[in-house]
Each structure stands twice: as C-alpha cells, then as structure tokens.
C-alpha cells in the first residue's frame, strides 16, 4: 500500500496537457446543442405530460451536460497550466491520418472486394508504419487473408461482394468469390 494512500487515490484521475482545449471545446459543443433545443425538438401540445414530451430527455441531458462541462471548464481555468498543450493538440491532429486510412479502406471494400481491399490495406499501412521487410509484409498478408477467411467465409458476416467481382466470367468461380471472399 506504499503508493496507494487513500480510497480516493484509487479513483482519482489527473489532468494532462491540453485539458483546457478539450474542456473549452466540449463546453462550446454542449452550449451549441442546448441553444438548438427549441429548433431541434418538438413540443407536443395535445394531452402530453412534461415527462412524456419528446424534448424532455434531450433537455435534461443537455442541461446536465452544459452544467458539468461548465464546471469542468472552470476547473481547468483555475488549475495550474501544464506545459505541452500545443504538442498534445498536434498529437490529436496526427491521429486523423489513421482515421483517413480507415475511411479509405471503408471506401475501397465495396469497389475491389473485401479480400483484395484487406490485403492492400494491411500491406500498405504496415509499409507506412515502417514494417518494410519481406517477413513483415508476409505477416500482414497472412493476417489479412486470415481475417477475411474467418469473418466472411467462416462466420458469414454481412459484407457485400466487391463491384470488381462482376467483371469475372460468370460461373462457379464468380459466385464462390462473391459468397466467401
């Protein structure tokens, strides 16, 4: 118990650089949603009590959200500034690159099919991450094929066949590709 002094220690979390940016952004977001409450929900006049109004729960949640976000922001404002704010925000922005990779993969699947898209995605992303030796490229290809076989062929999850499969000559091979890969 040397490092754990109180019950509170177990639950306490500590501020990190960039807390002010996030607290402010979240507060503004909550405020924006709250201001939009009259426009984005409907008040039903006829024989409807307050708790059954469609606007009831959005109103409760947004008031609570704005209230807590305001207090959270206040906490960040009065606390000592932790150096490294810009670096932290840049880290968040850097992660957008991988969200873009993910979306590119998503857009590719309906076009060139699940198998090809997965092999291509795993291979190029591994290359981008610095795993450039033949062993790593082989590992990523094996992984890609295994995922497709496990989920599409074996577990039969719903992923539509790629448009490219239409170009295959009609017959057993094409329907096999469409169903299983």
């Amino acid at each position: 118990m040397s490092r754990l002094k109180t019950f509170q220690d177990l639950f306490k979390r500590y501020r990190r650089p960039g807390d002010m940016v996030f607290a402010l952004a979240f507060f503004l977001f909550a405020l924006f949603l709250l201001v939009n409450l009259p426009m984005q929900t409907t008040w039903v006049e006829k024989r409807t009590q307050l708790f059954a109004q469609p606007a009831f729960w959005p109103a409760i949640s947004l008031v609570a959200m704005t209230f807590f976000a305001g207090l959270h922001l206040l906490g960040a404002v009065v606390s000592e500034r932790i150096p490294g704010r810009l670096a932290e925000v840049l880290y968040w922005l850097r992660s957008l690159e991988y969200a873009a990779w993910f979306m590119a993969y998503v857009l590719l699947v309906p076009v060139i099919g699940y198998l090809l898209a997965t092999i291509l995605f795993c291979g190029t992303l591994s290359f981008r991450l610095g795993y450039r030796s033949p062993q790593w490229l082989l590992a990523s290809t094996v992984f890609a094929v295994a995922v497709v076989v496990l989920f599409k062929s074996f577990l039969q999850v719903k992923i539509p066949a790629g448009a490219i499969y239409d170009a295959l000559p009609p017959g057993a091979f094409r329907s096999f590709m469409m169903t299983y890969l």
Partner: protein
Amino acid sequence: MDAFLSGLDLLARFDVALALLIGSVGGVIIGAIPGVGPAVAIAILLPATFSLDPLVGLTMLLGIYGSSMFGGALPAILINTPGTAVNALTTYDGHPMTKKGQALRALGLAYGASFFGGILSIVALILFAPLLAKIAPMFGSREIFLAALLGIVLVVLAHRGQTFAAGMLAAFGIFLNTIGLEPVKYTQRYTFGQDWLASGINLIVVVLGLFALSQAFVLLTDPESAPTTQRVKGNMLRAMGEVLQFKRIAAAGSSFGVLMGMIPGVGEFTAQFLSYTYAQKTSKAPEEFGHGSPEGLVASESANNAVPAAAMIPLLALGIPGEALTAMMLSVFYVHNVIPGPNLFQNQLDFVYALYIAMIALNVIVVVFMLFASNWLLQIIRIPTRFLGMTILTLGFVGVYSLRNSITDCAISAGFGILGLILKRQNLPIVPIVLGMVLGGIMEVKLRSAMARVKTPLDFVDRPIAALLALAILVLIVLHVWGVIREHRSRVPETQHDHDLHDSQTR
C-alpha cells in the same frame, strides 16, 4: 434443481462448447496483450455474434469477459504492465516478486487466486439465484428507472477527482441516445435535417469507435514499443496450489468482488481496494504490501475475477448493465429478442443457470490452459504495438461495416475513435458515455410507463424497493459531497499521489 439440470442440458451442445473454448482461450490471449482489453475484443466480435444462437454468442462473450483477467496478470507480473485495466493493482506486488526471482510463484498465485475468486463467486450466485427470482418480480417500471438512475449516479461519483467530466460524458451519452426519430410521438430530435441522423446513433457504432478504433489510433500514433520478456520455468500446478495457504484472503476478496460486482457502476476497482485494505490490515507482515507480498497479490486477483459473474446479476435480473462490457452484452440480448429482466429469472431460470455453469467451465478451461501456455503467451505479447494497432483497425472495420453495411456508420465510428483517443490522452473515462446511452434509453422508457400510475411525486417512492433506491441515491450524493469536503481538509501534496496508476484504466 430441475432448472439447474435443464441449464446443464442447454450447454451440452457442440457449438456452445466450441464457443466457450474459443471465448476463454481467446480471452486469455487478448487479456495478456497490453493494449487490447476485453472491451476491444467484445466490441469487435459483437456484430459477428448476432447471427449466432443467443446462448452461443453470450458464452463466447462471457468467455472473453471472464478469462481476460487471467491473461492480464501475466504482463502485470512479468513486465510491470497490466494486460487489462483491472490488473493494475496486481503490478504492485506481482512485479516486485518477479524482481525477487519469484516469477513462477507470483504467476501461480495470481492464477490460483483468480480461479478461486471466479469459482467461489459463481457458486455463491447459483445458490443465490432462487432468491433473486423471488426479488426480481418486485421490480416494476419505477424501480427499474430508479436502479438505472442509481447506476448513472454511481458511475459519475465513482470517478473521483473527475466527477464533472464523468457527469458531462454520462449526460452526453444520454443525449446521444435521444438523437433521431423518437418512436412515441414520431418527432425528429436533433437531426438537423440530415437523413443519416434520422435513424439515430447506433450504440455498437459508438462502442466500436470509443473502444476499438480509439485504441488502434492510440497504438498507431504512439511511438513503437515491444516488451522484452523472460521465460518462466517450473511446475505451475504446484505454484497455483499455494493459493490454498491464503484461503481466508481469497475468500474475503471474492466476497468483496461479488458484492461490488452486483452494484451497477462500481465494479472491480472498489472490490480490489476493499480486499487489499482488508488483507493488509489483517496481515502479519503489512509492511510487505507493495513490495512483493503474496497476500496482496491474492487479494487483488481474487477480487477482480469475482466481479464478472456478479456483474451479470443486474443485467440478467433487471436488464441494467453496470459497466461497459455488460452494456455491450445487453445488445446481444436485444438482437435476439431475449429481454433481460424480472421475467427472465422467473421463466427462464435454466438459461441463467446455463450462463453460470458456462462461467465455471471457462474458469476450468483457462486454468488448464495456463498450466501449459504461459511461455507461449509470452511470445504473443511481444507483437510490436503499431502492428497491433493495424490489426485492431482491420478488425474494427468488420465490426462496424458488417452491422448495416453503412459507410456513414464507419465515419461516425471513426469520429468516436478520435473522441476516444482524446479522452484516453486526457485521462478521462469512456465508460460513462456508453452507460449513459444504455441507461438513458432505459430511463426514458421506464419513466414514461411508471408515470402513468403516479399522481403525486411521493407516489413514486411508495413501494419499499423504490423508496430504498431513492434513499440510496440521496445518501450517495450527500456522502460524496461530505467526502469531498473531508478530503479537501486533509489533502496531501499533489506530488505524493501515484499519478501513473490510472494510465491503464481506459484500456
């Protein structure tokens, strides 16, 4: 007894056994890899289990849930990095034991204590189930509403030091659940005239983004690291047997685990803390705690592994999940039109027993697996982190896209992935968002049906359980405020706290 036997009968099927095997062995492996927790794995597998039989799907997910902590103890003890969040306390005594050259003993004790905690809690709950079947029907709409509200209050208050953030995130979760076309008056809520918002924000899309994609983004953006490990030599069975010398602590740990697991929003951390404090206070060598005390290790591991079985109670008996993993499992129930709640305990007690028996079986499978597989697992946890990130991203795609084949879902999920990354970097909790979404939906429906018979506000709490729950909510809030004031008066300098403890909480 009949229900118990018929539960056993439900399980005696090849597909259920296979799901159990895959779930439990997979859970150990996933738990052992730092950076991938059971939440990531369950989120990814969730859509795939929708096409399976409910019992098959649930046993697989339960297998992952119940076995991941066994696996998580391995890196916690050997490389001082908890494999899952709830193994953080295990590093306190487990790693110092490794440094003293007692790695095998520490691993054996951890597995032994986990097994002890797991089995004891399930046995207690099987004996407890008939009683629950009697109590559960006393929960009507207003009681379930209040229990869900209690869950929200607890999950907010449990994040000490970040209560405001937990509150705003829980409220954000409740708000997310209201977006789209509401089903009673058919009005649009917060759709901003966009078609893609009219159908609402799907819980699984959010969960996959917050847990799986965010973890992938963190691993991909962080610099590379691959832990180095050493082989463990010796007889694991004998090492596991040593836990029997700490029966009292293991039993106390399991009891705390069961009690805390049943209360929504509380869970492993409180159970571990109570168990650890108890073990230290009653120990003959309290100064060893934190420096490689076998008692501390047993206290930590027996408490955390007793929680999963107990956490199934509010889920099965009331339909109220207490934390993120059971919230995900709730969606499996919904997809199959099995509505957990009082009726389940009354009419399908065999199904409940089947789940508990499956949990006993998974503990046995995992212990047998661990007897032989520790060194093999050490190879797996050496996967470089960025490559691991790539694999999670690939698997995350299956989870989101197979749900509705929607590119919009994938974009929303990626957005929540970025939000999850920021929250993890900020050391803010993710769980309140997920619980807010699930419990918010429950509260909306139950409040509407409860108010039909309520004339004055006092009518709401005129039944014993409702009154008890309302009182509990009030007492908790008062105690929290009082605790904050007391803590403020006796505060210790910021530098004396252990700031690294919560690094792993959001995994």
